[in-house]
């Protein structure tokens, strides 16, 4: 149980909306959210489909613990085929939208086809309607949010929507919910916009019940909340500094990719760190960080709520940006800061606001700007292409201008919206794109954290830290400390993280809980809530099944083993400083073993035995 056992299916082409029961056999195999939605997706969508074709589908899915009292149980995911990578896309978001979906009585919303005109989907419990959105098209996420709240006269509606970037075809556009929480990666917003859907607005008042054993569930969630509170990372580090607690740590380690990953340490790291967000600024004595905020049900509350210095050049004439909004998380701060060489905290915060306001992934955006900066410094692109912007590493002015253009899908911002792979290919320098499968890297240099190299190369959605966050083990020692520079044991480590993560991503819980929780903490909460047996072993097996299913989709979509690699820079150019000095990422030492352990051929295909072992659809 815990599932509502209901799916809302919306055919955008003909406007037909229907309810259907959740496939409970699949729920036992794939749990919910990421896994279960992927199972539906592979059943219903041809892997060769064009990501922006009406034949692609777009699923918003919750997990069985979404909307419950389990700490961090506020997640939902957007599952579709990515226009950026051509792989399965699964972008996870917090905020309050997922819980509202459950409260409205739905485990998933499947959007299919393409609406002839712009619309938004409004769901109030079991009533769902497509509402014309011509008036909202061309508006930002923030303006759309405001308009929809006004239209329905209900401040409690939860809204996920796309901004102008997605409308303009930006390939890394996000779906932003609750103003500043995002299903950020892989261009899921681009797909939603391609279907002429501006927003999904939800109001749910039915409540989330269906808990298998309520007393056991309440006891388990209570018990494990105490674990989060007592843990140094989830109980202190994250609430205080957010994920930005990592900026100085990773920089020290010589694993902070800098200036398009040419370097591994950033001299300005402190200025854009979590600690700096706590320092009073000169102009008004206020801190960048106003407070920490939690997503639905989260007792960690790592979210940053920040403001920009009103006297800062980026906002001094724009009072609409003087208030508080979602502040910098580590990955965003890294992409916008060290990777572009910019050390101006206010500029980064403002640009982060813009990313939320118009729905773009700050990681892909920052990394693409970094690639463009390298192209600019190499003279491949000039002010002629950039429209006069001196696109130099370290220029906060350039970053701000490019962000404004990209958010709105204007000028050179349209080229940035291609993502780094297509941009670098366009200008004949593909080797400058720091991507895997077309998706930009996050903030951990795999020369200094070897397991992350394997993580990036094998991630089912392109370069991503959230598919197996071995940083936990290799840097923080969670659950056990491993040597970040070693490759031995990393295939096993990566697989364990990938499987556990897939299970967590399918439960409704947040992956950040796993700084303190392992499946030993999580499985009992799932088991108390959900019918069936949800032992640690079963959760891990479900995670592995999900991983194999995603992989299988990608291979059908036309990817090959050759796509499981890293940019040459990381494989050939050694780190110039720090503990990893002289090292490259030794992917070759890890990948074959990984394939073997996964039960794949040397071409990276699932063997028939593997397919059978996990009961994958043929």
């Amino acid at each position: 149980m815990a599932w509502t056992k209901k799916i809302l299916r919306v055919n955008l082409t003909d406007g037909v909306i229907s309810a259907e029961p959740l496939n409970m056999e699949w729920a036992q195999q794939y749990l919910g959210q990421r896994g279960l939605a992927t199972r539906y997706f592979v059943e219903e969508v041809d892997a060769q489909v064009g990501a922006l074709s009406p034949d692609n589908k777009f699923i918003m899915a919750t997990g069985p613990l979404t909307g419950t009292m389990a700490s961090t149980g506020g997640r939902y995911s957007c599952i579709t085929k990515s226009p950026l990578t051509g792989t399965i896309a699964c972008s996870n978001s917090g905020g309050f939208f997922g819980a509202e979906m459950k409260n409205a009585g739905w485990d998933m919303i499947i959007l299919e086809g393409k609406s002839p005109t712009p619309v938004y989907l409004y769901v109030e419990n079991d009533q769902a309607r497509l509402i014309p959105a011509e008036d909202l098209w061309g508006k930002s996420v923030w303006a759309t949010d405001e308009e929809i709240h006004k239209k329905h006269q209900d401040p409690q509606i939860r809204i996920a929507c796309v901004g102008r970037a997605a409308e303009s075809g930006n390939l890394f556009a996000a779906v932003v919910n609750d103003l500043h929480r995002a299903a950020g990666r892989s261009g899921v917003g681009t797909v939603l916009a391609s279907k002429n859907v501006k927003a999904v607005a939800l109001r749910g008042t039915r409540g989330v019940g269906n808990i298998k054993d309520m007393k056991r569930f309440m006891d388990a969630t209570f018990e494990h909340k105490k674990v989060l509170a007592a843990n140094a990372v989830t109980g202190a580090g994250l609430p205080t500094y957010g994920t930005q607690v990592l900026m100085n740590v990773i920089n020290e380690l010589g694993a902070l990719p800098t200036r398009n990953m040419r370097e591994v340490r950033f001299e300005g790291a402190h200025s854009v760190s979590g600690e700096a967000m706590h320092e009073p600024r000169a102009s008004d004595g206020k801190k960048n960080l106003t407070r920490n905020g939690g997503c639905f049900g989260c007792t960690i509350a790592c979210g940053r709520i920040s403001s920009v210095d009103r006297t800062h050049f980026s906002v001094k004439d724009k009072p609409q940006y003087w208030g508080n909004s979602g502040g910098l998380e580590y990955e965003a701060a890294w992409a916008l800061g060290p990777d572009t060489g910019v050390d101006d905290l206010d500029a980064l915060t403002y640009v982060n606001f813009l990313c939320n306001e118009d729905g773009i992934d700050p990681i892909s955006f920052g990394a693409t700007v970094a690639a463009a900066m390298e192209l600019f410094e190499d003279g491949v692109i000039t002010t002629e292409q950039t429209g006069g912007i001196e696109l130099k590493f370290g220029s906060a002015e350039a970053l701000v201008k490019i962000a404004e253009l990209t958010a709105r899908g204007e000028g050179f911002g349209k080229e940035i919206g291609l993502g780094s792979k297509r941009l670098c290919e366009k200008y004949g320098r593909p080797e400058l794109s720091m991507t895997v499968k077309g998706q930009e890297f996050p903030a951990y240099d795999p020369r200094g954290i070897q397991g992350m190299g394997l993580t990036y190369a094998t991630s089912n959605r392109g370069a991503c830290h959230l598919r197996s966050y071995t940083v936990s083990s290799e840097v923080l020692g969670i659950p056990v400390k491993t040597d970040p520079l070693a490759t031995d044991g990393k295939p096993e480590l990566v697989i364990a993280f990938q499987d556990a993560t897939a299970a967590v991503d399918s439960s409704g819980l947040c992956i950040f809980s796993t700084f303190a929780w392992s499946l030993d903490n999580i499985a009992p909460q799932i088991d108390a809530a959900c019918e069936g047996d949800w032992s640690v072993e079963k959760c891990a097996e479900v995670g592995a099944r999900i991983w194999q299913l995603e992989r299988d989709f990608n291979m059908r979509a036309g990817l090959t083993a050759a796509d499981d690699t890293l940019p040459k820079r990381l494989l050939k150019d050694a780190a110039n400083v720090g503990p990893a000095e002289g090292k490259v990422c030794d992917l070759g030492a890890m990948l074959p073993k990984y394939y073997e352990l996964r039960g794949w051929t040397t071409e990276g295909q699932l063997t028939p035995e593997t397919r059978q072992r996990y009961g994958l659809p043929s």
Partner: protein
Amino acid sequence: MNYVIIGTGPAGVVAAETLRQRESTAAITLIGDEPEPPYSRMAIPYHLIGDIAEEGTHLRKAPAHFERERIQCIQQHVSNIQVDNHQLTLADGSQLGFDKLLLATGSRAVRPPIPGMDLPGVTNCWTLADARRIIAKANAGDDVILMGAGFIGCIILEALAKRGVNLTVVEMENRMVPRMMDEQSGGLLKRWCEQQGVRVLTSTKVKAVSVAGEKLYVELETQPAMQVDLLICATGVKPNIELAKGWLQTRHGILVNRRLQTNHPDIFAAGDVAEGRDFSTGDYSVQAIQPTAVEHGFIAATNMSGGHYLHQGSVNMNVLDTMGLISASFGLWQGVENGESATLNDPEHYRYINLQFKGERLVGANTLGMTQHIGALRGLIQNRTRLGKWKDYLMDNPSRFMEAYLQQRVA
């Protein structure tokens, strides 16, 4: 002290209880002329639906509440008051003395001067006796006309519809609840009722009623005549000022000062019969609503028993559930001269909000389809909250009133 209260509605009962709280030894007598324990007219519709038994309408539920409070209850009509010797005469001729007297005689349903309104098939819906009559006569399949789509009319609509009668509503104004809701929301209410299968005729009147065999023959202005089994008249109420007439100052109701005292120092008035102070206008008028009756009862009793409590005025407000669509009005919902207003209207979903401002203060509101935190609208009006920048926010999006309220509170 010997206190006598005439009227067993909320004003009378609250006054009696307040007096008891303030004076443990006083003699307190509560006189009502209906053959029932004190009950609430607000609850009658829920009795008509069958949600509650008759006892569910009673104002006080604890067994022997009035005996326990040592409040003597008399069920008799008061014939007249001899103010000079502080005495009153009951219908059975007996005499009762008092030191202080509270007139809380309430109001009664009136019938317009139309031929045939005294026929047996015509009833009001005001008292428990009326309710019994309706329950007996309005049954599934019966044809019923409800005259008047004011507050009372609307609140019994659902009960009548649920009883399965073929219902037609006749309202002389151009919309429903014209004295509570503005044109847009009153119009929406009408559309809502029609969607629920109720025939609503606005801007028309009943001209005459006569007997046609077993049925009533009802002639209408500008509409074809109808034959019905029952005609319920809910065209308005009027204060019961007869006992005061001639010797106390009266207008529409009994005139009182801010202590709820009449022009006779020992006689007070409260509730529907009193022209109390209106918070919003500062003028004196009959509001005829439950919360005002309660305030009156409390303040009058406090002053009768030696207290000094000046009534700042009651905020006129109403909340109404018309077949599941909830509407509310507060204060000067019609707006004020040189005021400003903000509206959001979503007719498709029957949601509507209108706020009326004077300067940076909220003075009135109408809402339709809202159930959450609406009391804060009263709070904002009654606190005369200076809204500051929230005035602009509310002008842009009036549905954010609770945030505006809270912002003032925690700022």
